[in-house]
């Protein structure tokens, strides 16, 4: 397969109970440049217009837009649009990757042992973080996949398949702050939860794993047309293997991301890379309405040419 192009529209709307006098927001919405991904167009529109904004690159290389409002407003609307081109990713033979123990040991500290800069960066993804825990339980869950000397990618793939099989997708079971221990106890959740759990298992095994935030192409039900706003943001897992680099796994769909996963960026967990994070002065109870649309280039004109097209505001996270 060759190159594919997508248009992504990601809209977020907050209604505040009371006027907000001052607010700071950080947006992580710009798709990253990768060997297999080019962001050929990206723009963010905000209403009301912020008093000021600024872009910077965070410690993990993601582009962040910082907004500041210092005038009363009772709603906030963020419209992000991106044109992204994807090439097929390099394929890896799972069974011929190095033994998982060798990955673990390569990054293990020994006094005076030097590590290269890629491995140095990977070690940042070996430890506990806000949403990721290292637990004996997680190690025990992971163990059946990590038989001695098993090739690391085969082991990770097996872990992903087991999570896909044994955990139920259930948007009602969790919210953005559900701890990963609870996700494990109930065996239910959404993409964010599965990613956090899989990362916890991997790090407990000593394998560096990071949290990837992005979008996924969905297919309308048979016979139905694609709807604007019917998609959602997505999250999956990336695993580090010396020599091979970072390789993605999507435990929500039991696939290895290729031409249908659009990457925004990554961090140690959701809290590092949440699409929108903010602090308000004043205001009150507010759940955002979010509408995401991922359209293959071929369908673009068709979808957006209909003036009366229905627009949906969906739940934050979806399969």
């Amino acid at each position, binding site marked *: 397969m060759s190159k594919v192009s997508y248009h992504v529209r990601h809209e977020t709307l907050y209604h505040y109970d009371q006027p907000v006098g001052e607010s700071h927001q950080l947006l992580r919405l710009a798709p990253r440049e990768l060997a297999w991904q080019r962001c050929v167009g990206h723009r963010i529109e905000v209403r009301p*217009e912020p008093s000021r904004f600024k872009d910077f690159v965070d410690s993990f290389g993601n582009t962040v837009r910082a907004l500041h409002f*210092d005038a009363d407003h009772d709603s906030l609307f963020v419209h992000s649009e991106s044109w992204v081109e994807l090439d097929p990713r390099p394929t890896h033979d799972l069974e011929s990757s190095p033994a998982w123990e060798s990955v673990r040991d390569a990054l293990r500290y020994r006094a005076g042992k030097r590590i290269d800069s890629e491995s140095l960066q990977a070690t940042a993804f*070996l430890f506990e973080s806000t949403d990721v825990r290292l637990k004996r339980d997680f190690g025990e869950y992971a163990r059946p996949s990590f038989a001695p000397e098993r090739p690391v990618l085969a082991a990770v793939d097996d872990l992903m398949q087991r999570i896909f099989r044994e955990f139920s997708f259930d948007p009602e079971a969790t919210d953005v702050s559900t701890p990963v221990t609870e996700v494990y106890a109930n065996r239910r959740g959404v993409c964010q939860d599965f990613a956090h759990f899989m990362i916890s298992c991997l790090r407990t095994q000593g394998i560096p794993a990071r949290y990837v935030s992005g979008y996924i192409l969905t297919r309308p039900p048979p016979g139905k047309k694609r709807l604007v706003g019917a998609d959602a943001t997505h999250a999956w897992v990336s695993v580090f293997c010396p020599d091979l680099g970072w390789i993605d796994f999507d435990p929500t769909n039991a696939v290895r991301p290729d031409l249908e996963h659009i990457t925004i960026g990554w961090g*140690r967990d959701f809290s590092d890379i949440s699409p929108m994070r*903010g602090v308000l002065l004043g205001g009150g109870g507010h759940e955002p309405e979010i509408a995401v649309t991922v359209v293959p280039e071929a369908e673009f004109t068709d979808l957006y040419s209909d003036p009366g097209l229905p627009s949906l505001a969906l739940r934050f996270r979806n399969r």
Partner: protein
Amino acid sequence: MPAGLIHSYPFPPDRFDEMLVDRGMPRPHCEAFVRRLENLSHNALEQRADFVAEAIESDGVTYNVYADPKGISRPWELDMLPLIISAGDWKHLSAAVAQRARLLDAVLADLYGPQKLIAEGLLPPALVYGQRGYKWPCHGTVPPGGRFLHLYAVDLARSPDGNWWVIADRTQGPSGAGYALQNRIVVSQAFPDTFRNLHIHKLAGFFRSLQEGLARMAPTGGDTPLCVLLTPGPYNETYFEHAFLARYLGFPLVEGQDLTVRDDTVYLKTLRGLRRVHAILRRLDDDFCDPLELRADSALGVPGLLGAVRAGRVLMANALGSGVLESAALFGFLPRISERLLGEPLAMPSVASWWCGEGPALEHVLEHLDELVIKPAFPSMRMETLFGHFLSADERTQIVESIKAQPHAYVAQEWVRLSQAPVWTPNARQRLAPRSVGLRLFAAATPDGYVVMPGALTRVAPGGGVEVISMQRGGMSKDTWVQADMPVRRASLIKKRLGVIDLLCTGTDIPSRVGENLFWMGRHSERSESSARILRAALTRLVGGGDDIDKELSGLLLAASRIGAITSDDDAAGDDPEVTLEQRLLGAVSDLDQPGSIASNLRALALNANHVRERLSPDNWHVLNRLEAAVRPSPTTLDQALGALDQVLLSCVSLAGFAMDGMTRDEGWHFLILGRRIERLAGLSALVSVVLQARERDREPMLEWLLAAANSIVTYRARYRRSPELLPVMHLVVFDTSNPHSVGFQVHSLKRYLVSIAQDLGHPMPPQIAGLEQCLARFDLTAFEAEHCEAACSRLATLLSDAESTAYALSDEIHHRFFIHTARQSRLRSVA
């Protein structure tokens, strides 16, 4: 004092004694002091001990033991006997501490920069990335002046052979320097002559270095630097020290909400406007400093602070993320890091440490557990330090299991038998008792290198034989005297006596938070008072009964619900109107969940008052406390409710008296009065409108309670000696500017205060109030002389409804302009 003082003090065979070299024999550098002690009579020593205790109490030196709002703030405990360090010892100590500060600063620069220590295998990644103290969002930031560590503290212990060892590094916002200074001020006064004769180093120079270092390294762009001390607030355990240090250094003491970040620049919100802050000496932990990028649930921080740091627009002392070095697990790696980063051997050893994350270290620890002290490798683990030889068999098995499961989370240290020093006791048989001691030393960054405070906070174990020193668990402290080779000059940042030039007529730059709380204190106390008056009128009629009561009551209830004192008829649906009314009135007095009830107003008032505690006299507090108690327990009968309302009114009147006669009339006070006037203008206008908008035949019976609600009955009776009539009542409660409860009076005095504030604070005068004053002056009262004066009533009602909305608009304007410094919706695009 007989020589027995020293002879009765036990000399320890197995540990170092700071005062004695042998039984009854002082160390050479302590000899002069010991001789002085022996020359003093029992009484004279007793007096000095009393002096020290009293000084601590009268200066209000405290240490909050429990960090909760109701916690006990415990007086600071200070022993009158200083710990003396010889000039020779000091030379070694100070050089070693300065080197360690330099080293840790360089480690921070590496960890938040190139991270070569990890790449070269000099530091395990687990001890950096695995620490919650490592703040990824801070990676890549370069502080102005290039220093990460501006105020550093290190805890030292002396082993039996007399050598000093580092047992802990404090790198975020170290506490204790202020307490050390406070100790010095008290103890040097207890032994003034000895202090002079022994050539003891002064502390002031150190604090001046700290001040100057921050001022010179802050990104001021040539402006006069404004440095603030950021505190988590009064509930923090060392809040006393924050306030004390802020005063001593001349820095405003601020909480997170006093600061705002705009255009990556930090500003202090003051009543005079936003003032640029160049440096922040912080006592707030990393996690809490910026809810936008660090811990999201922090209410103590400043949103956007990290952005200002990233832009190099503010100096943080210490740099955000410096808490990562507070792990004892780093000790073992420092000697090699020192060679690598400084090219020097580490001058002072850390206590021997084994980080269990390394295989051989783990084996050693498990084998020698009995001789070791076990600590968490990550300070965020909140684990108690364990002494191997005190562990029971069960505890031992448990800890061994935990260590084996997560070896990288534990560090073991050699157990150092702490040195001891004498403390003065009230026990007449043995005046001097030995206690374990440890030193906390401080270093400050200057552009020319680190300066070490020639003194220390000596921390003393709470009891004999106790090995763990912790202020949290009730330890004591000592002043620490460092001897100089030569006589030292006297210098202090505190002037001995104030001169004319020091006299202040008003406080400078009052933080907006203070003005805001005073403003709402004014509004809530006025609202409590007016609600209490109208509810009392209603209750009196309900209890008293009478022929016309229903008619009067319905008007009253309408008025009460109009000002929000009672739930409206629509909300209070019920089958039995009689019971419902009684319940509604009781709820209006005591239901905390009902917005606008007396109880919830009083609660809000107490909250505002708490934030400006230091500005209120004890008498004022007494009244505030009584006020809150007035509706507790909740009254259950109408009679009890009436009693409670009487109490509330009495206290409210006292508060009004304090406001006018018991407070200094500075900028903050103006806002208290503005709050009262605005609230009364709104409330009164609403009440009068209710009367004016009533049907003509219902109006007359309303005038009686209107006069009561406007506290004007006495004046009316004295003036007219007849039952209330519309024209004179309207004149008295709307137009008569000599009546402090009239609408006109509120408008008049609001204008006066606003003019004065506009002049003082350099803000333009809000325009609304002058227009209102003109309308009142132009109103033709003769229209009320007509037999039927409906037109006049409706005109006045319109005017008063304008007055009411003006009051609220004004409140909003003041809130935006002076307190939060943001633009209002009507001027959406204007940018500060």
